């Protein structure tokens, strides 16, 4: 049996693959955060709560309306996005002229509100959600048995991430977005409705979070606390990747998922802190983040 660092090759590859699955979640979430931060200069602390909201919507759709997974996969992000529009128009908008920290504090308050409300109505044990029919079962890859659903998660995330990156970096709409980040006044002078762009960007960013939530629903128990466990790690991912860089967020998310997965094999107790340790190191060596630019 071939071993790498004392672990059988099979197990090693298996863990690598699992890390990729987790990395996909990190990638989508940090992508959403990066998009929102890039244009609005707001750290959306509520990202975790909105991810949770997406998962809950999937469950609600199933339980109250009998809507299946695929419907909710398309619908939930839209609903979360609409909710995001409401948040942006009613609450966030007022804070743009102020110090960016107030945006962080506001979204922190929103997180507490959402988590508290969901906890109050649904308890914390979590709601079950079953894997959709088409994706049940597992494939024997030789070195491990991979549940089909997890493979789907990786595929879906990569597709969405790549699509987002393409739109932002390669299309005219994306160019407008990027220009709006650099110089909103100038872009407005060109006749572009910048406030609308900002609102839609926020909506899109949180829709990504909602999408990740639906993807997560069959894997994790849908609980009001699922977001807060994740959000701090995603923050660290974004700091490591360097904010404002779309590609940076995706690559860092995937990469850190893999590193975390490997840590679980060699040093399981540290797997929850390894991301932070890496963040500390990156900060010492490259304060702007791996892909960031010093402004």
């Amino acid at each position, binding site marked *: 049996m071939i071993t790498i660092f004392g672990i059988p090759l099979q197990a090693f590859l298996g863990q690598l693959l699992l890390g990729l699955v987790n990395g996909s979640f990190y990638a989508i979430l940090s992508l959403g955060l990066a998009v929102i931060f890039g244009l609005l200069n707001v750290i959306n602390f509520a990202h975790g709560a909105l991810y949770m909201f997406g998962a809950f919507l999937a469950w609600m759709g199933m339980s109250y309306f009998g809507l299946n997974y695929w419907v909710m996969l398309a619908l939930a992000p839209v609903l979360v996005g609409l909710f995001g529009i409401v948040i942006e128009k009613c609450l966030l908008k007022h804070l743009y002229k102020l110090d960016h920290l107030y945006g962080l504090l506001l979204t922190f308050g929103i997180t507490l509100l959402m988590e508290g409300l969901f906890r109050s109505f649904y308890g*914390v044990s979590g*709601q*079950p959600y079953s894997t959709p029919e088409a994706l049940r079962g597992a494939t024997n890859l030789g070195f491990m*048995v991979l*549940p089909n*659903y997890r493979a789907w998660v990786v595929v879906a995330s990569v597709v969405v991430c790549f699509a987002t990156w393409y739109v932002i970096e390669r299309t005219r709409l994306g160019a407008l977005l990027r220009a709006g980040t650099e110089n909103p006044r100038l872009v407005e002078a060109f006749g572009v409705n910048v406030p609308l762009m900002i609102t839609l960007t926020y909506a899109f960013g949180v829709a990504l979070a909602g999408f990740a939530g639906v993807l997560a629903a069959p894997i994790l*128990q849908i609980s009001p606390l699922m977001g807060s466990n994740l959000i701090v790690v995603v923050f660290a991912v974004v700091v490591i990747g360097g904010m404002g860089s779309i590609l940076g967020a995706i690559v860092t998310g995937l990469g850190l998922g893999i590193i975390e997965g490997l840590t679980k094999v060699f040093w399981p*107790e540290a*797997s929850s802190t390894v991301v932070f340790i890496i963040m500390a190191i990156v900060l010492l060596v490259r304060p702007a983040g791996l892909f960031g630019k010093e402004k």
Partner: protein
Amino acid sequence: MKLRTLSASLMLAGFGLVSQSALANISDDVIRIGFITDMASVYSDIDGPGGIEAARMAIADAGGEINGKKIELIFADHQNKADVAAAKAREWFDQQKIDMLMGGTNSGVNLALAGIAAEKKKVFMAVGAAASDLTGAQCSPYTAHWAYDTVALARGTGSAIVKAGGKSWYFLTADYAFGHALERDTANVVKAAGGEIKGQVRAPLNSSDFSSFLLQAQSSGAQILGLANAGGDTINSIKAANEFGIGKTMKMAGLLIFINDIHSLGLNVTQGMQFTDGWYWDQNDETRAWAAKFEAKIKRKPSMVQAGDYSAVSYYLQAVKATGSDDADTVMKWLKSTKINDMFAKNGYLREDGRMVHDMFLMEVKKPSESKGPWDYYKQLAVLPGETVYTTLAESTCKLIKK
């Protein structure tokens, strides 16, 4: 900074503080029970508002008063913070003059509460907590640990499974004190019964994804996967185990499972799982009747903890009635000399170290085809007599036990 601002702030603070004390009720003609538990967070379904209701039922069934003195229940949410609980308990003892303190879920909170009750020399009934330390290293003459503890769960589940042929074990442990204790207690039992520990993996608390740890468990080749975790971690690991088909090569042994967890996961995912429980609503007519009354109010079947709350309060009130006193030493003496036999506990008695020893049960989760409806989840495999599963007096680390 303006004097006016300062004095305005001062007045505000002053009024607030004074009103705080004015609200304090000092009354000694009332038998007051204070119940602190997790009302809205991770453990709220197991105990929480349901537990409060169970306590109320006990008070109602005792007639609402004893020898003319009214019985009153006050409760609070500790939000899983030991300091919130401790502050509330102190306030209740000092200002509201409670006679008995009850601890709901969360071991850390209960340990803190036990210390305060001991300081104030009042009865403390720990129902929802699992920590065996409550009757071990941190025992007190005023603590009664009523429903279950980690040792009983470990011994019950561990020895039963090894006896049934599950000799090789692998542990998935939540990496904190409680998880380690559960793993250690079970491992000791497994080894003593002739079993073998193939290995263990420590997962951080509140991990969202257990897939990697489960793969490691599977590659160990052990027969039994011991889940030394609780709450959300247990639920998530079971779900993932199901996804990865771990059930095909290993049997899962939950070391701390509540009926609410099974309800949340569903039978498809949990069928065949074996574990120890202290009580189940469908055991006999008595339990069924009480559970039906509970369900009418709470819309859920009760868990072991909630049934334990009812029992603990009932027996406390019986003690007060029988001795005609709410002095803690007198009540504890009566409780320790009485047989505990009610809807909740069979063959129970309260030991010198505060441990309420009673029969525990080995349960297995039914297959979906065997279940007739929601909450019909368990089949009882065996009765585990209290002496065989709880820490024996000879092993006890409690300073109250003279050896």
